[in-house]
C-alpha cells in the first residue's frame, strides 16, 4: 500500500517503527485526517445510532455517487459534489420523511426512494459525462494515502463547524430524539431539529467519505457508537468511549495497512466489525441478555 520506494518491515522496536511511519508526510496527513474524521463521525454517529437513522445515514453516503459524477460533469472537485449532494439529500430525506401520514415502515420506503433517485441521477450524470469516471476503486473506497495538506485543513474546518453546531443543538436534539412527543409539547421544534441534524449528518458523511470512501463510512459512523452504547449506559462515558474506539479503529487500521499490501479501508472496516462483535459478545457473556435493552432505556432516562 505505501509507494513503491517504501519497503516497510515490522521490527521489535516499536519506537523505531513509529518514527519510521511518521517520517512520511503522507502518513502524517493520513493519520491527521483519519483522527479528525474518527472524532467527528463518532460523535455525530452517536446521535444517529440513538435516533436510529442508520438507513438515512447510509442513503446520505450513497449521495457520493451523484456527487462525484455530477462534479466530474460540471468540472469541479469531487469533494464539492459530495457536500452539495449530501446536503441536498439531507433536505430531501427530512422533507419527505417528516411529512404526511405513513407508518415508520413507510418512512423506510421513502428513504429508499430518495436513495434510488440519487443513484439514478448518478447514472444519468455518468452517461452524460461519457468518459471514464476517474479511479472507480478510490471513488468507492477512498484513498487515504493521497490526502493533501489543504484537505486536512478543510476537514478540520468542517469538523469544527459540525461539532460546534452539534454542541449548540445537543440539548434540544437529545430531548427530541428520546421523547419527541413530550419535547414537541414543551415547544421544541422537533421537525426542524430533525432536519438540522440530517444536514449535520450529511456533512459528516461527506467528510468521512473522503477517508473511507462512501461504501465504508459506517465503519466509523456506526460501529464505534453502537459498541459504546452497548457497553455503557452513561451518556458521557459512552461518548468518550465512542471517540476512543473510533481513534483506535483508524490508527490500528492504518498502522496495519502500512505494513500490508491491502488497503486501509479493508482493515478499518474489519476492525470496526470486530469491535462491535466484541461488544455484543461481552454484553451477552455478562449474562445481561436484557442488558442492552435496559442500558438503552437507562440512557434514554438519563438524557431526558
Amino acid at each position: 500500500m505505501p509507494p513503491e520506494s517504501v519497503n516497510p518491515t515490522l521490527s521489535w522496536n516499536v519506537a523505531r517503527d513509529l518514527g519510521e511511519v511518521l517520517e512520511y508526510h503522507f502518513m502524517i496527513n493520513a493519520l491527521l485526517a483519519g483522527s479528525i474524521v474518527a472524532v467527528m463521525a463518532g460523535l455525530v454517529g452517536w446521535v444517529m445510532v440513538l435516533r436510529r437513522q442508520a438507513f438515512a445515514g447510509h442513503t446520505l453516503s450513497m449521495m457520493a455517487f451523484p456527487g462525484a459524477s455530477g462534479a466530474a460533469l460540471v468540472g469541479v472537485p469531487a469533494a464539492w459534489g459530495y457536500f452539495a449532494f449530501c446536503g441536498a439529500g439531507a433536505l430531501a430525506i427530512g422533507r419527505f420523511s417528516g411529512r404526511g401520514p405513513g407508518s415508520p415502515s413507510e418512512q423506510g420506503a421513502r428513504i429508499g426512494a430518495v436513495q434510488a433517485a440519487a443513484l439514478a441521477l448518478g447514472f444519468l450524470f455518468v452517461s452524460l459525462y461519457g468518459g471514464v469516471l476517474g479511479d472507480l476503486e478510490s471513488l468507492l473506497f477512498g484513498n487515504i494515502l493521497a490526502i493533501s495538506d489543504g484537505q486536512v485543513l478543510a476537514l478540520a474546518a468542517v469538523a469544527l463547524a459540525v461539532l460546534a453546531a452539534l454542541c449548540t443543538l445537543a440539548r434540544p436534539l437529545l430531548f427530541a430524539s428520546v421523547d419527541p412527543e413530550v419535547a414537541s409539547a414543551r415547544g421544541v421544534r422537533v421537525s426542524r431539529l430533525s432536519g438540522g441534524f440530517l444536514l449535520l449528518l450529511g456533512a459528516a458523511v461527506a467528510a468521512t467519505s473522503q477517508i473511507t470512501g462512501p461504501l465504508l463510512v459506517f465503519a466509523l459512523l456506526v460501529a464505534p457508537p453502537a459498541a459504546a452504547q452497548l457497553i455503557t449506559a452513561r451518556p458521557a462515558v459512552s461518548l468518550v468511549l465512542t471517540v476512543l474506539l473510533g481513534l483506535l479503529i483508524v490508527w490500528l487500521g492504518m498502522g496495519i495497512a502500512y505494513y500490508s499490501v491491502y488497503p486501509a479501508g479493508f482493515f478499518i472496516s474489519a476492525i470496526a466489525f470486530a469491535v462491535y462483535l466484541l461488544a455484543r459478545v461481552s454484553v451477552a457473556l455478562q449474562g445481561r441478555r436484557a442488558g442492552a435493552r435496559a442500558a438503552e432505556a437507562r440512557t434514554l432516562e438519563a438524557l431526558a
Partner: protein
Amino acid sequence: MLSHEFMRNALLAGSFVALACGVCGWFVVLRGQVFAGDALSHVAFPGALAAAAAGIDQRVGLFVATVAVGAGIGLLGRGVLVARGGGAGGSTPADDTAIGIVFTFILGLGLFFLTLFSIGSAGGAGIQAAHTLFGSIFGLGAGEARLAAVIGFAIVVLVVLIGRPLMFATLAPDVAAARGVPTRLLGVGFLALVGVVAAEATQAVGALLLLGLLAAPAAAAHRLTGDPLAGIALAGLLAVLSMVVGLVLAYTVPWLPPSTAVIAVAIAIYGLSALRS
C-alpha cells in the same frame, strides 16, 4: 422497437424481475425491511468476487452471498420482531445498526478481494469477469432473459404461496406464533427469497433498479389501498409499468440510461400517489 432483439429481451426479463420486486416489495415495506433489501443488493458484488477468488462460478457466489445474508438478517431480526409484539414494522431500527455494520464489513471484504485480484497473478481477470457479470439491461442475451423471467415468476409464485401466513406473522406475530404459524421460519425464508430477487436483479438488470423497484411501487400501493390482495397486485403492476415505460423512454431518448428512466417513472408514480392521498 420490438424488432430489436435486445429490446425484447430487456422487456421480458425486466417485466418479470419488476413483478417479483413489486410483489416482494409490498411485504418488504409492510415489514419495514427496506434497508435490509438495500443491504442485500450491496453484498452481491463481494459475493461474486469471493467466488472468483475461490475459483468457483461467480453466479454461485452471488446467490449464496445474498441468500445467506438475507437469512442472517432474518435470524438477527426475529427476536426483536416478536419482542415488539405486533405493530406493522418487522425490524426495529436497532436491527438497522447491525445491518449497517455487517454489510459494511462485507463491503470491506469486497475491497480485500478487489485488491487480491489486482496484485495477484490472475491480474484483472477476476474483476473483469465480475464487471461483465453485472450487466446492463439492454445487454441481455435471449437465454439470460428467459432465465431471469423464469426466476422472477418462480419468486412471485413462492411469495404468493407463503403470502397468507407471512401477512399474519407480520401484522400479529404473537397471535400467529400462538396459532402455530412458524413466524421465525417465515421471516428467515422471506428474506432469503428477497436475497434471490436481489441476486437475480443485480446481475440481470443492475443493482440500482432493485432498491427503486422494491421501495417505490410498493410504497405507492400501500398508500393507494389498504386491501392486501389489491395492494400486492397493484405493487406488482406498478413495478412492471415503471419498467416498461422506463425502457420505452430510454429507447426513445438516446441520452437517457435505462436504469435512470425506470427509477424516474417509479418515483414519479410514488410522488403522484403521495399527492393523491
